[in-house]
């Protein structure tokens, strides 16, 4: 029941906040958001699951109720947690609370609506990570679009309307493609499955016969490959993976800081999480078949994304493109299909969530004071806002994968896992992708040098002063978490690997 409580609190909180008066909305929303955070931490503490949720693992906090009988297929409310989803749930709740606090300063109109939407998005994000029935999962997956569309559209930057609609339509098209593919998969499995419950489908794919039917005049194997590719593309848009990434920078740049935090911190993880849950859990054979092209895509995402970041002058754009780059590492880790690879990829999801969140907050805090994000417009900000800049620098080094910060752990796991991967030329691909760590240092340090160092200069008609404490507090929390995970990755890596192993064993069988 705890999971239901988690979602319910967020939903009700959203409604309450939505009707609350504007001036109290921020504080109220923060107070409310602490409840899910607390619950999720409690779940984390008392987690007793083992194995993979989709592959006969023992779920924690599981609950299932019949919902709809659609012909011979049953749809149910089916939620549960395993070592992969729990860290992401905690990430979501914690990040939401921090994002809410970080938006006290920048959000100065229609507050109650804003915070209501943030809580609403939190509810759906949690749902995405806990849902184990395809339709239930898909509801949450799609429902995320609405609040994000409005968050970007209402409180965003100058080109917010374009960015919002682009994000909305682009990702939705991808969802439709993926949906069709999955349904085809279910039909392809024929009588092997009688419901849309993901564990059942995964079981039929991995331990069962796999796709047996000949659909649309396609041989089972062809069908499986097509479904795999279609779903991969569908999720690739959400991740995003080059060349499906162009909605991301627009959305990031135009979105208000807290929205960016959630977007980069959690929404992108939906894509990689789905990839892991669907493609990489249900299609072990195809994963091996398509290892080379996917690895190539991963490398391209890393390098190309980094190159794009290098060409930007807008701090947010830089971070946005670097997200593309970082997500490339995740893909690399997933395709490696080794314990450290897939586990590292999952770890990177959490790590990148924290670090990119921190970066966006720091950039946001500076933006609050300067009202510009162009590194060319400002210089020597360290002189006026030492603490904020200090955190920005810390975050930047986290992004570069500085040891003893979570980013390094994640990247190292992925590299190590990918280097020893089974597919051909794995070391080469790893080596190429690793060059990203040089490029990332390049563009981040270049931006820092221009924006925060050097003699102070910024055209403002007011005095730029230090950031208020409630802007800094969330960043300190994040920094603490980043370092904690960097020093002690086993805080979550144990449970992750525990949930990852069954996937890989499925690959062998």
């Amino acid at each position: 029941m705890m999971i239901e409580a988690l979602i319910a609190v967020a939903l009700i909180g959203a409604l309450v906040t939505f009707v609350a008066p504007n001036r109290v909305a921020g504080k109220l929303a923060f107070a409310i958001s602490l409840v899910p955070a607390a619950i999720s931490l409690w779940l984390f503490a008392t987690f007793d699951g083992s194995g993979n949720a989709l592959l006969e693992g023992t779920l924690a906090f599981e609950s299932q109720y019949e919902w709809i009988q659609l012909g011979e297929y049953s749809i149910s409310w089916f939620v549960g947690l395993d070592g992969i989803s729990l860290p992401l749930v905690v990430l979501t709740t914690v990040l939401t609370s921090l994002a809410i606090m970080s938006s006290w300063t920048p959000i100065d109109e229609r507050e109650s609506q804003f915070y209501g939407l943030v809580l609403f998005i939190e509810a759906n994000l949690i749902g995405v990570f806990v849902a184990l029935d395809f339709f239930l999962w898909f509801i949450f997956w799609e429902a995320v679009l609405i609040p994000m569309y409005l968050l970007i559209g209402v409180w965003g930057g100058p080109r917010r309307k374009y960015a919002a609609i682009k994000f909305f339509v682009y990702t939705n098209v991808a969802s439709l493609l993926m949906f069709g593919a999955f349904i085809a998969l279910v039909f392809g499995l024929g009588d092997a499955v009688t419901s849309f419950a993901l564990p059942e489908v995964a079981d039929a794919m991995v331990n069962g016969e796999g796709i047996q039917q000949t659909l649309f005049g396609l041989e089972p194997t062809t069908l499986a490959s097509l479904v795999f590719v279609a779903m991969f593309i569908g999720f690739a848009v959400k991740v995003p993976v080059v060349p499906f990434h162009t909605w991301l920078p627009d959305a990031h740049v135009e979105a208000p800081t807290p929205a960016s935090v959630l977007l980069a911190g959690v929404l992108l993880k939906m894509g990689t999480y789905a990839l892991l849950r669907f493609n990489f859990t249900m299609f072990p054979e195809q994963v091996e078949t398509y290892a080379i092209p996917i690895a190539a895509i991963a490398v391209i995402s890393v390098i190309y994304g980094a190159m794009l970041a290098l060409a930007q002058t807008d701090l947010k754009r830089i971070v946005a493109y670097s997200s593309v780059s970082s997500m490339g590492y995740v893909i690399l880790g997933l395709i490696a299909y080794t314990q450290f690879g897939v586990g590292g990829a999952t770890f990177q999801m959490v790590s990148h969530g924290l670090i990119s969140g921190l970066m966006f907050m720091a950039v946001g805090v500076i933006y609050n004071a300067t009202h510009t994000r162009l590194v060319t417009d400002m210089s020597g900000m360290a002189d006026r806002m030492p603490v904020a800049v200090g955190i920005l620098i810390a975050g930047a080094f986290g992004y570069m994968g500085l040891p003893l910060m979570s980013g390094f752990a994640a990247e190292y796991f992925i590299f190590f896992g990918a280097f020893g991967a089974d597919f051909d030329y794995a070391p080469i691909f790893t080596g190429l992708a690793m060059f990203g760590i040089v490029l990332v240092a390049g563009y981040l340090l270049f931006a820092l040098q221009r924006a925060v160092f050097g003699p102070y200069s910024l055209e403002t008609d007011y005095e730029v002063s230090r950031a208020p404490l409630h802007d800094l507090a969330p960043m300190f929390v994040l920094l603490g978490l980043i370092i904690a995970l960097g020093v002690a990755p086993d805080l979550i890596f144990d449970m992750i690997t525990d949930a990852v192993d069954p996937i890989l064993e499925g690959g062998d069988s």
Partner: protein
Amino acid sequence: MAIYELPEWTALGPALILAVTALALFAFDSISPRSTNRQLLAGTAVAGSLTSLGVAVWFTVAGVGTPTADGGNGVIDPTHGFVVDQLALYFMIIVAVVTALIVVASYDYLVDHAYQAEYYSLVILAATGMSLMAAADSLVTILIALELASLPSYALVAILKDNRGSVEAGLKYFLIGSLSSAIFIYGISLVYGATGHLELAAIAEVVSGETEAGSGHDITEMGGLLGLGILMLIGGFAFKTASVPFHFWAPEAYEGAPAPISAFLSSASKAAGFVVLFRVFTEAFPLGEIGAVIGFDWTVAFIVLAIVTMTLGNFAAATQDSVKRMLAYSSIGHAGYALIGLAGLTADGGELVMGAAMMHLLVYGFMNTGAFLFVALAEHWGVGRTFEDYNGLAAQAPVACAAMAVFMFSLAGIPPFGGFFSKYFLFVGALEAATASTAMLVVAAVLVINSALSLYYYSRLVKAIWIEDPPATRDRLAQPTGLYAAIIVAAVMTIVILPGFGPVVDAALDAAGAVVG
């Protein structure tokens, strides 16, 4: 349930109640045509439609029409030419719901209209016709019910006598309508000519060769004649459901008519059209047998129609300036979605896809009606008709605008709203049908493209009311009780129908099962 005691004719209760209400209103109208006792008139109409709704729900629950095997009372034949089964009741519910909603809304919308009684009586009369369409199972009754629905509609569309738009809309609706009905009737005559019968069941027997036509000739010789007849029937129904190429009246009629009437036509009238379509083609021209007679299964026709209708509706909607016209085109697009329900049928089965279409029509009854009623509200406010005129309404009327956002996202098929399930189940159904005939893959693909496009223009409206800034010059907006009530009810239903979708699915699948397989 005391239903056993009731005589059989009461099975038509939902329709009859509407008829009685209509007559009552007529009586009132003839007594005092200029009466403006809105409470009484609207009250009567609402009471009538709600009773009809209640009875229809009651019958459904009581198991009228459910096969006796499942502990129901079996299909009831109240009188010659009518049948009451789950399909009929299901659509009677839809009609009653929509009627109730728009009547409530009209209470405010028609506040300064001269002929109140006339309006309400026409509405209820049309509702009666639609309700009867749901139960008609002979081409005669179908034609009568259909015209009973159409004729008042013509008048209703043109009821704003001094509004050029309304009149123009009425004219176009009427002209296209009469043309279509002429074609329809000619089609009936050809079918009759080919089979010698007008009852669907009898036609089916002839088509399947169980009994031979009255004249004793072999049906297959008449294949061409029958085929032409069938095509003409399709034409008649296409007009009712605003499907290409008989859709041309729809954009103008919906745009020019009073918004509640637009809602009425685009939701209830469309649904009624579809129920007849479903019934006639599944019962009179059984798939498989019909192929032997006219050379092809009529699903082909519907595949084509579905694709064209979806595409034309959505594409034309994408760049409209007038909100009402956008909704009109989107309603054409949704007709295309619903057509998939027939296109996906196969000789053995297809409950899923047809059921999905029915679910969609039910949900559509709420979300589309709601959307049009919001337009009615806007017209009531007098803010204007274009997207720009709607800018920033949320700042002044957040509740109504929240409801509108719900309708839009639901129409676009975004959760957590009812439209999500119906649309995606339709998608699932289409794919399942595609496993049988690959042509349905094309339909599914087109569905994807169109729903993506629809996302664009629906969110465009949300953008206008929620994201854009309101113009400086716009005075306070009133909060008419009736309109608000109707809109909020529609919105709430659109939302709660998602968690409560289980019964809807069961009802729809049973309804489909009543005619398919």
